[in-house]
């Protein structure tokens, strides 16, 4: 090869290399899917606490709500009790639209209106990863709905009038604020915990990420305001401190994350701690860019 052709190839590599996503991804779809799984907090809702080794994604975790009680489902590739017999399209439909193959509607404890904001390619790689974990035979525990006509009347009405659906991008953003917004709003579904809930328990996106008191937070926990408000939010944190927190759980004052946030940082087979520094920086920059909302979340 001539010197000028070598230089041309080298320059072409530089140009193409600069288009590589800020979080450069492995080639294998399942490995890429594991990264998306990490960005979603390890889908910890589907794994019982302290059962990561024996029951990753095998379901069983209990959620109590004003409607009754539901239990997370088995999303391992077990053919009898999991998603082993589902097609990729059926799994994707369940994730983003909340419908099972038999047409049954999922309760939005699984936040499908938010996951609807995930790009198609990320959903496909996520499915590839879900199919790669060990199948676990564990029958799903039936839900117990205590409100009459809840699934046939109230839930469809709530979804139609109150549940804002995120819009999926044509392709997953790879860098910048768009990447941070995509990871925070859709994949990481941060708003499901951090955005205030109205009296109808829908998300009040006019106060995006402004926190929830104990009465409205997940599993009865108060959830912090992560808008850049200086008095009540993360305005006093630097971008680096936000990144460090999501990567390690370490807070600037020496405290360490616990509770549900500790769970999603640690994840199950993967969690926020496994995201690249570039992606965590994109999320931190996005959080610093959204409107500050004064909303003190106390005791």
């Amino acid at each position: 090869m001539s010197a000028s052709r070598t230089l041309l190839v080298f320059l072409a590599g530089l140009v193409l290399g600069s288009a590589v996503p800020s979080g450069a991804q492995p080639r294998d779809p399942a490995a890429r899917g594991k990264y998306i799984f990490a960005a979603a907090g390890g889908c910890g809702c589907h794994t019982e606490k302290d059962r990561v080794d024996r029951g990753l994604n095998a379901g069983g975790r209990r959620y109590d709500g004003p409607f009754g009680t539901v239990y997370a489902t088995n999303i391992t590739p077990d053919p009898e009790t999991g998603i082993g017999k589902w097609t990729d399209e059926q799994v994707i439909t369940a994730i983003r639209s909340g419908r099972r193959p038999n047409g049954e509607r999922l309760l939005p404890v699984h936040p499908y209106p938010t996951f609807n904001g995930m790009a198609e390619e990320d959903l496909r790689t996520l499915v590839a990863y879900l199919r790669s974990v060990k199948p676990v035979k564990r029958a799903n525990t039936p839900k117990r709905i205590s409100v009459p006509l809840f699934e046939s009347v109230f839930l469809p009405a709530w979804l139609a009038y109150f549940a804002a659906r995120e819009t999926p991008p044509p392709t997953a953003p790879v860098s910048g604020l768009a990447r941070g917004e995509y990871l925070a709003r859709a994949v990481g579904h941060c708003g499901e915990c951090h955005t205030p809930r109205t009296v109808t328990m829908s998300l009040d996106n006019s106060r995006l990420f402004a926190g929830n008191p104990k009465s409205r937070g997940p599993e009865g926990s108060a959830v912090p305001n992560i808008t850049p408000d200086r008095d009540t939010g993360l305005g006093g944190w630097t971008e680096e401190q936000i990144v460090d927190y999501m990567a390690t759980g370490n807070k600037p004052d020496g405290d360490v994350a616990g509770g549900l946030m500790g769970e999603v940082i640690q994840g199950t087979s993967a969690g926020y701690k496994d995201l690249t520094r570039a992606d965590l920086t994109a999320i931190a920059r996005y959080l610093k860019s959204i409107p500050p909302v004064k909303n003190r979340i106390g005791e």
Partner: protein
Amino acid sequence: MTVRSRVCGSVLVIVGTALVAAACASSEMMKVGSGDPVADRQRLMKNVGANWADIQAKAKANNFEAIAVNADTLALNAMHVPALFPKGSLTDKSKAKPEIWQKWDEFVKVAKNLETQSEKLRDTARAKKNDEVQAMLKDFGRNVCGACHTPFRVPPPQRS
């Protein structure tokens, strides 16, 4: 009274006095802290947090050997943890969850883990094994502090 019985009596008085003095001294030694375990453990945890923040600041400045003194403090604090959570000390004033007493053996185990991991960090820092110290610090917060905070503590109110 014979000389022998006087001597025996004197010995008994001396020994008895010594025993009483020892008992008083040990009861004073056992009364550690203010007597309010909730206030004491909150102060202890603030001290743990301050030392952990200091460790991270020193690591960022590549001052790894200096971390040893903070790690030693963490280990010493960890020794006191179980005693600061006596039965009956669950209160709305603290972030301790009832799971502490429901899963006491597990709680004691994670406290002991803080002690042993802190000692390991101290010894590694003193030995100037900087790469090993860095590797330990990467997961220390999550795996050691988080191992207790996640199951046993209600997240504290937000501080900006």
